[in-house]
């Protein structure tokens, strides 16, 4: 029976995947059927050629937006622009950074972002002093927390890891915003200093802003808008430099 060779065996032979035990039989059969032998040889050549034809895709650099597709829904923004902004801030010194007094906010060119910063500062001031109920869902249920908030906001959220800044996640809560639900994540350091990350969805999905800084009633806020989401990082405990470092960490994780 070993001289009966199936088409599936021929295919496996072409792929070099025929079990050793059958190889001799198939080779013997092919030797007696030159046309078939030529066909299988052609398949082998074609496989090589197909591999070679698309080989280049493997070494081609992966577009940035694909590297982060889905790990966050937020569209890319060039980190370089932000780093340049931060560097500029460092060069000019803190005084030259955009510090806005909330009373004058409505006159600024980014009133909407500033309103967000203000809401974030207020939410921070309300919840961060809480000892017993700082969050609705604790960090022990992080997955559930993130899934829940993502669902309510309608965007895929993540709770950034801020260990590099010595802050760990306490948990989060849902807040009412001007145009829908808002998520607040709370972080805390070993010695009890707190910061909150405020995330809202954006109606106009094609707007981007640089990092901005505002201060309201001793709560410092770094904030930015990136197409479908606006972010604000607020803390009364951290210095502006520390907050900027956190903002940078958050930004990098959301769209490195």
């Amino acid at each position, binding site marked *: 029976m070993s001289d009966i060779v199936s*088409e*599936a065996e*021929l*295919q*496996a032979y*072409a*792929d070099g*995947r025929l079990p050793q035990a059958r190889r001799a039989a198939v080779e013997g059969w092919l030797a007696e059927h030159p046309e078939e032998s030529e*066909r299988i040889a*052609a*398949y082998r050549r*074609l*496989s090589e*050629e*197909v*591999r*070679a*034809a*698309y*080989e280049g*895709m*493997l*070494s*081609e650099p*992966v*577009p940035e*937006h*694909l*590297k982060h*597709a*889905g*790990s966050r*829904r937020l569209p890319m923004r060039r980190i370089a622009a932000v780093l340049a902004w931060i560097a500029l801030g460092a060069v000019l010194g803190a005084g030259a950074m955009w510090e806005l007094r909330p009373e004058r906010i409505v006159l600024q060119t980014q009133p909407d972002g500033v309103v967000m910063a203000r809401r974030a500062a207020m939410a921070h001031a309300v919840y961060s002093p809480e000892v017993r109920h700082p969050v609705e869902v604790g960090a022990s249920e992080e*997955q559930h927390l993130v899934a829940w908030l993502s669902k309510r906001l309608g965007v*895929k959220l993540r709770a950034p890891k801020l260990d590099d800044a010595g802050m760990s996640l306490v948990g989060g809560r849902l807040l009412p915003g001007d145009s829908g639900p808002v998520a607040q994540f709370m972080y805390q350091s070993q010695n009890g200093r707190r910061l909150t990350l405020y995330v809202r969805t954006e109606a106009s999905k094609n707007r981007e802003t640089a990092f901005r800084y505002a201060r309201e009633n001793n709560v410092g806020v770094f904030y930015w808008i990136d197409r479908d989401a606006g972010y604000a990082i607020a803390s009364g405990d951290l210095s502006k430099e520390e907050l900027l470092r956190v903002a940078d960490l958050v930004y990098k994780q959301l769209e490195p």
Partner: protein
Amino acid sequence: MDEAKRLVELIPRLRRYARALVGDKAGADDLVQDTLERAWAKLHLYRRGTDLRAWLFTVMHNVHVNRVRATRPTDPLHEDMPELAYRASQGDTLLVRDLDRCVARLPADQRAVLLLVTLEEMSYEEVARTLGIPIGTVMSRLSRAREKLRAMMLGQAASAARLKLVK
């Protein structure tokens, strides 16, 4: 998370397969993006210790099938269809362009099998699992895809030779 890192590492392979499957780079990257978004959202369903690549290609296959279904009633890349609009980029050799064109003209389900076997070098069992078809179907599609591709490439060679004669 470990899977997350490996998932990112698999992107070039997803792109290669998608490029050959869809036929153009932009369309391929759209498919990869949809696949990745879905994969991230479904990563909790992935069972650790199992083959992440196979899982990812299954996700891509499902996304692709849904997209094809959603955008057009039948697959246009049918063998009877007229030649596709030109898709290859400059710098490709003639052989690569011919191959790419011929691959694109294979019936979609045969093309998927051929590419998973050839590019990804998946075992026939893996291909069967990835595409959700019996292994016998994998073998027959593979056989038909190869024969069709061979015939088309021979045809290309023949018409190229005729062109030369006409000149």
